[in-house]
C-alpha cells in the first residue's frame, strides 16, 4: 500500500466516526485506578438499555489526573463537552441528557471542548489550557492509542513518508537547526548526537528509545506510550533511516504493563501497514523495533547501564569515553534518546526546524512535559513552552497549593533534582535556569511541597532512594551516600550536630566528583538544595530538637488537651492501634508516650468540634 492509500483508509474511518455521537473515555493507568473501566462498562450498558447509538472509544491520558475518570462527549454539530470525576451512576444521566437529547449536562462538566487548529484539546473554561502548549501530548486523550488509523488520520506517519524522501544529512541539519535537546533530562543537543552517531565508524548501528522512567513521581513517558505510542515509533524509524540501520530497541519499565501492551500492539499495527519492518513504504529501507522490559533498576536510566541491561547483564555504568555514540550496545555506535525526544522528531520534520526553534527560550527550544503532583490542586500532566515561570506552572496551570496551605517548595527532577523555595518561583523553566538554581530539568517530575512537609525529611527521602539504587560500582556513590544518609537520619531523630552540616556539603561535593554516572553526580542535589534554601529547618532539628513542619517522628509527640477532651467520647481509645490511650478517673484521655507509635489516628478520629489532639515539637519535657 502506498502512503496515500494508507492515509485515505485512515481518513475514511476517522470521518465515519464523526458522523455519530462519540464517547471518549480515558483509560490510561491513572484513569483505570480511578475506575475508568467501570465507567466504560456502565456506558455500554446504558447505551444498550436506552437503545442509544453512540461510539465508545477508549483513549489515553488527557493529563487532568485530578479529575479522573474523564469522559468527553463529541456530538456532530453540537458542543463537545468534557466531564470529570465521572462515576457509573451518572452515565445514565449523560446518555439520556446528551446522547439522546440536547442537554449537555453542564452541571457535570469540566468545560466545553473544542478542536483548535493545533489539533490539541482545549477547554476554554479551564484557564490552564491557555498557558499550555500541547505538542507532544496533542493526541493524548484524543485518539484511540490502540488504533493506528486514528494516528494516521491526524497527520501521523506523514513525517516518515516525507523523511524517507529526504537526504540523511538534511534530516540531521533540520534536527540541529531546531535546537531540540534531549528531553530525558540531561539536555544534550539531539542534532549533534545524531550527527556524531551518523558519522561514527562501525556497523551495525543501534537506535534505542529510553523509556526506563524510574523517577518516583514522574509518569510523562508512560502517558505518551499509553496514549500516543505511534509518535515514538515514527521518531525512532526516522532515526533509524538517518543512521541507515535496521535495528531499533525500546527499553520500557516492566512496572508499566499497559504501556508495554499498547506499544506492542502499535508495533504490530505499524508493521501490518508496511510502516515498520521490511522495505518501509517501498523505500528499500527496513527497520524493526525490539521491545525490552527493564527489571526495576533506577540506574538503568543511564545510557551505558541501560545497554548492559539489554545485553542481559547487571546494569552498571562504565567509564567513558568511548561514548555510546561510538561504542554502545554490543560496542557498536548507538543512538539513545528519550521517549519525548523521539516523539518530537516527527513534529520537527513535519513543520520545520524554524517553527520548532521559534518556541521556547534562547538555549532551550520547544516544550517541556511535567508530571505535576504533591500538594497542588490540579495534579496531572502538563506541557508548556520552555521559559514559562515556575509560578505560572504551579499557580495558573496547577491551580495553586491545596486547601489554602502555604507553599513551601517545589521539587523538580526527582531524586537527581532539587527543591526550590518560594523566592525562586519566577525562575523560568528551561535547562540552564533550573540547573543554575540547583535543580535540574530532569525527567519531568515536579512535586509541590507545602508547610506540612519537612524539608529535611524530603531530602532524606530522595537520598534514601538513590542510596538504595546506587549500583555500588563507585565508592563515593556507594559509601558516600550511605554516610550522608546516616547524618540525615541522625538529624531527623534529634541526634544531629551543627558541624555535620558542613560535612554533608563536603561529602556531597566529593560524591559528585567521584562518581561515574549521573546517578552519583546528582544524588546529593536534594540535600544540597534543601541546605542552601532551608538551612534554618536543619538547624531547628539540630539545635532546638524541633521539626517545624511536625513531620519527623522522633521530634514530635501527640498530646490530648485535657480541657478540650470531651469525656464521654472514646474514639481515640478504641481506634489507637498501639492501645496507648487510656482514661483517667475523670475519663480524661491520656496518651502513654512510651507506647505511642505516632500514627496520627487519634488526631484523625477526634471529633472536629473538640479537636483535643495536638501535635507538638519538640515534645514537652524533652529539653534540648
Amino acid at each position, binding site marked *: 500500500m502506498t502512503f496515500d492509500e494508507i492515509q485515505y483508509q485512515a481518513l475514511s474511518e476517522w470521518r465515519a466516526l464523526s458522523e455519530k455521537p462519540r464517547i471518549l473515555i480515558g483509560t490510561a493507568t491513572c484513569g483505570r*485506578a480511578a475506575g475508568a473501566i467501570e465507567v466504560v462498562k456502565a456506558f455500554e450498558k446504558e447505551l444498550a438499555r436506552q437503545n442509544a447509538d453512540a461510539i465508545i472509544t477508549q483513549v489515553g491520558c488527557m493529563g487532568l489526573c485530578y479529575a479522573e475518570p474523564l469522559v468527553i462527549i463529541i456530538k456532530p454539530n453540537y458542543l463537545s463537552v468534557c466531564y470529570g470525576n465521572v462515576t457509573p451512576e451518572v452515565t445514565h444521566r449523560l446518555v439520556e441528557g446528551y446522547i439522546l437529547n440536547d442537554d449537555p449536562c453542564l452541571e457535570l462538566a469540566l468545560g466545553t471542548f473544542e478542536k483548535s487548529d493545533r489539533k490539541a484539546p482545549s477547554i476554554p473554561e479551564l484557564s490552564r489550557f491557555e498557558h499550555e502548549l500541547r505538542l507532544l501530548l496533542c493526541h493524548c486523550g484524543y485518539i484511540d492509542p490502540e488504533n493506528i488509523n486514528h494516528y494516521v488520520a491526524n497527520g501521523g506517519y506523514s513525517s516518515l513518508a516525507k523523511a524517507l524522501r529526504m537526504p540523511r544529512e538534511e534530516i540531521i541539519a533540520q534536527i540541529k537547526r531546531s535546537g531540540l535537546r534531549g528531553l530525558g533530562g540531561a539536555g544534550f543537543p539531539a542534532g549533534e548526537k545524531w550527527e556524531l552517531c551518523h558519522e561514527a565508524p562501525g556497523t551495525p548501528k543501534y537506535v534505542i528509545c529510553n523509556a526506563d522512567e524510574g523517577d518516583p513521581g514522574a509518569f510523562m513517558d508512560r502517558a505518551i506510550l499509553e496514549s500516543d505510542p505511534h509518535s515514538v515509533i515514527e521518531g525512532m524509524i526516522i532515526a533509524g533511516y538517518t543512521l541507515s540501520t535496521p535495528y531499533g530497541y525500546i527499553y520500557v519499565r516492566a512496572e508499566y504493563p499497559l504501556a508495554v501492551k499498547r506499544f506492542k500492539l502499535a508495533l504490530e499495527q505499524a508493521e501490518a501497514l508496511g510502516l515498520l519492518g521490511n522495505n518501509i513504504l517501498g523505500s528499500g529501507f527496513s527497520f524493526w523495533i525490539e521491545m*525490552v522490559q527493564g527489571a526495576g*533498576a533506577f540506574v538503568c536510566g543511564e545510557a551505558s547501564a541501560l545497554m548492559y541491561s539489554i545485553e542481559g547483564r547487571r546494569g552498571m555504568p562504565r567509564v567513558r569515553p568511548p561514548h555510546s555514540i561510538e561504542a554502545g550496545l554490543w560496542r557498536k555506535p548507538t543512538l539513545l534518546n528519550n521517549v519525548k525526544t523521539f516523539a518530537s522528531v516527527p513534529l520537527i520534520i513535519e513543520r520545520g526546524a524554524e517553527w520548532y526553534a521559534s518556541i521556547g527560550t534562547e538555549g532551550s527550544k520547544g516544550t517541556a512535559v511535567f508530571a505535576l503532583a504533591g500538594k497542588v490542586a490540579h495534579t496531572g500532566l502538563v506541557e508548556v513552552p520552555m521559559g514559562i515561570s515556575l509560578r505560572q506552572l504551579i499557580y495558573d496551570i496547577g491551580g495553586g497549593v491545596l486547601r489554602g496551605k502555604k507553599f513551601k517548595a517545589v521539587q523538580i527532577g526527582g531524586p537527581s533534582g532539587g527543591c526550590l523555595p518560594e523566592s525562586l518561583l519566577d525562575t523560568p523553566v528551561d535547562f540552564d535556569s533550573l540547573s543554575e538554581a540547583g535543580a535540574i530539568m530532569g525527567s519531568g517530575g515536579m512535586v509541590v511541597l507545602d508547610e506540612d512537609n519537612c524539608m529535611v525529611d524530603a531530602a532524606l527521602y530522595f537520598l534514601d532512594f538513590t542510596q538504595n539504587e546506587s549500583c555500588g560500582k563507585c565508592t563515593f556513590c556507594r559509601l558516600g551516600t550511605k554516610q550522608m544518609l546516616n547524618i540525615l537520619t541522625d538529624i531527623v531523630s534529634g541526634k544531629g550536630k551543627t558541624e555535620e552540616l558542613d560535612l554533608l556539603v563536603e561529602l556531597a561535593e566529593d560524591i559528585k566528583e567521584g562518581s561515574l554516572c549521573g546517578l552519583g553526580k546528582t544524588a546529593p542535589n536534594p540535600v544540597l538544595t534543601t541546605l542552601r534554601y532551608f538551612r534554618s529547618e536543619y538547624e531547628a532539628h539540630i539545635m532546638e530538637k524541633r521539626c517545624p513542619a511536625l513531620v519527623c517522628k522522633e521530634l514530635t509527640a501527640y498530646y490530648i488537651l485535657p480541657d478540650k477532651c470531651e469525656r464521654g467520647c472514646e474514639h481515640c481509645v478504641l481506634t489507637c492501634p498501639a492501645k496507648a490511650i487510656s482514661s483517667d478517673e475523670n475519663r480524661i484521655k491520656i496518651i502513654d508516650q512510651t507506647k505511642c507509635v505516632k500514627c496520627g489516628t487519634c488526631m484523625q478520629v477526634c471529633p472536629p468540634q473538640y479537636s483535643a489532639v495536638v501535635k507538638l515539637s519538640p515534645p514537652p519535657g524533652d529539653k534540648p
Partner: protein
Amino acid sequence: MAISEIASGLTPLAMTNKQSSKMTEDYKEGLSHILKSYKGERWELISLLQKVQERFGYVSLEAMSGLAHFLKIPQSTVYGVATFFNQFRFTPLGRHPIKVCLGTACHTWGGKLVMEAMERELEIKVGGVTLDGDFSLDRVACIGCCVMAPVIVIGKDVYPKMTPLKVEEVLGGFKQKASSANPPNDEKG
C-alpha cells in the same frame, strides 16, 4: 540438549509426598514451556527471569540454576543479575500480595505511616510474608496514581488515599472474608 532434558536436570531436591512430586511436575513443565520460545542466547537472561517470575511468582534457586544451564553461563552470573534488579523476588508471594507505594507523592502524603501501619498490623517487615502465607508486604517506587496518594495495591486493586486507620479496615475486610470462607461449625439457625 533438548529442553526437557535441561528442565529435568533442575528437579528440586528429592521430594517424597505426592503433592511435592505434583509440584515438581508443574515446575518442570512450566520451565520447559518458557524455554521453548528462547534461543539460549546470553542477552535473553533478564527476559527469561521475568518469564519465570511471571509463571511461578518468584525466582527459585532451581530456576536460576536451570537458566544457567540453558544459557551455558555460571549460576553465579544468573544470581548476580537476578539480585541486581529490584523486580525479582526469591521467596513466594503471599495469597494477597500487598504493595505500599512510597513514590514521591505518596511520601508527601504520609506513605511511610501507611507502611508502618501495615508492618504493625501484619506483624512482618517490608519484604516479608505472614506465617499463614496470606499476605506479603512490599514497597513499590511509584505506580503513577499520584493523585490518589497515598495508595496501596492488593492483588490488582488500588486502594486510594490510605491512612493507618484505613489499613486496619482494609486488612480487616480480607481477614473476615477468609474466615467466612471457612465458617466455624456452629449450630443451625
